[in-house]
């Protein structure tokens, strides 16, 4: 019993199950983007072709930044659209 009470808790008890699933989906997306940035050379360690004026590697890094921004915007709309202001 004691062991259960002290176990890892990724969510506060007030967070409903449906919302937890959504949060997990976004968490996986962000982890993928972080790993993509850290290991970009696995798929884009090349100077050519030049895309939008940038070497391919730099383009890949910038594209991941844009993707991250889009995911953040989507996350805000999906997870927090009904959340009241909490001043």
């Amino acid at each position, binding site marked *: 019993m*004691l062991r259960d*009470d*002290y*176990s*890892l*808790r*990724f969510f*506060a*008890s*007030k967070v409903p199950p449906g919302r937890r699933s959504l949060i997990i989906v976004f968490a996986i997306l*962000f982890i993928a*983007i*972080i790993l993509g*940035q*850290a*290991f*970009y*050379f696995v798929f884009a*360690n*090349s*100077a*050519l072709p*030049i895309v939008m*004026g*940038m*070497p391919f*590697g*730099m383009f890949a*890094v*910038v594209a*991941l*930044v*844009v993707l*991250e*921004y889009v995911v*953040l*915007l989507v*996350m*805000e709309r999906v997870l*927090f659209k009904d*959340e009241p*202001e*909490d*001043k």
Partner: protein
Amino acid sequence: MNQVIILSVIGVYLLFVLFLGAIAGRGRADSAVEYIAASRSLGFVCMYFLMGGAIFSAFAYLGGPGWAYSKGAPAFYILGYCALGLVPWLVWGPKAQAAGQKFGYVTQAQLFSDRFQSRALSIIIAIVSTLAFIQYVSLQMKGSAYVFEIASDGAIPFWAGALIAYAVVLIYVFFGGVRGVAWTNVFQGAFMVITAWVLGLYFCYTLYDGPGDMFRQIIAAKPTHLLVGPGTKMSFAAYSSAVLVSVLGFTMWPHLFMKAYTADSRRTLRRTIVYYPTFAIMLVPVLLIGFAGILQVEPGVLGAPDRILPWMFTNMHFPAAAVGLVLAAALAAAMSTQDTITHAAGSIFAQDFVSVLMGRPTSDAEATKIIRIFVVLFGLVSYLVTIFGGQTLVALLLGAYGSIVQLLPLAFATFFWPRATRQGALAGLVVGVCYNYAIAFKFAPKLWDINPGIQGLILNIVCLVVVSYLTKPQDKDHVLKFVEL
């Protein structure tokens, strides 16, 4: 004559920032919560630029082009980590903000030391933070010194340039508190972004036929410059671990973490995180400036790579007023970070070190006085490190990240792992920080070219888990109040 105009523009800029910062705190309550956390009242625009100003620093504005110039593709890591830096804050930023409102914290160490019921933890965090802050502020002062040195064509020596930036920041942090820092960062942030875009693209189109042509010429002259890995300036392991330690460590910086306490609401905090990657996009033209310099000046002529941005502007026959504006923007980048950190260092020393050692909370008047004294002393020590230290801007930053990322397991354990104990937290932190510094000072080997911070972090987590399971759990009701935020 040109130098006089350039320095006049910079002088006007500094006076304006000084005025803005100094008046920001006027008419506000003379309390520690106001001085440190702006009475928890900052809205989205202030928060956005406050956080942005912290990353759009001398490291990004001068060190970024310096790396693009001297190392090439490794500079891409700056874009990646700048964009992702605040993402981990989605996990604990709102929780930290709620904890601040509920329990009255104004610093990061107050949260951790309360969770783990440990005054020693507060003192250790204060020491670790201050040591890392010195490296970080030294980096900004170095950037400012380069600006003055080049703007005056050597008439203002390195030591005097660093001293001027130190004095200006000191005055408005001293009088304006975090509100002064926020107001100046809004102005400086907007100023930096505009100049970066206009002038970054300008170089690509005047010196070359656009960025594409510029990169083709670089590839022809230096085929491996735009790659990472064996035979380049950075190994795969060094690149990946630099990104990871920076992303994981970014929000652990006490001066950023404690900004969770300045936001007026969770929504403001979240919106700041959502819009933060736009700052990374704004860094793209800054790197272009460094790349544009590769075929324009030999490293031997330039001296330090971090001088490439000011060198480009002073050697491309711009009108003197334009050069002055650009150098003022570079100065803004350095100062907008220096002010945030100087302010945080003073606050942390007063709240997490002096107050804890005294064994009683300090009064508002006492706290504000101690913060101001330490702001002066901290700046002085950083100044001496700037003058006598020798590392490049980015190397200084990566070194500081190695110790700050060691606070990450504490944040995770505070909000998600009730079983973590005081002994586990202390053991993990001390081992992680000591191991990081042991590698930095070459007492321990740097394994596989992996960033020392990441190696220390792994040891830190192992110690936290093992020692926590070997020791008695803390009071359940106490630890659960942090998990349930």
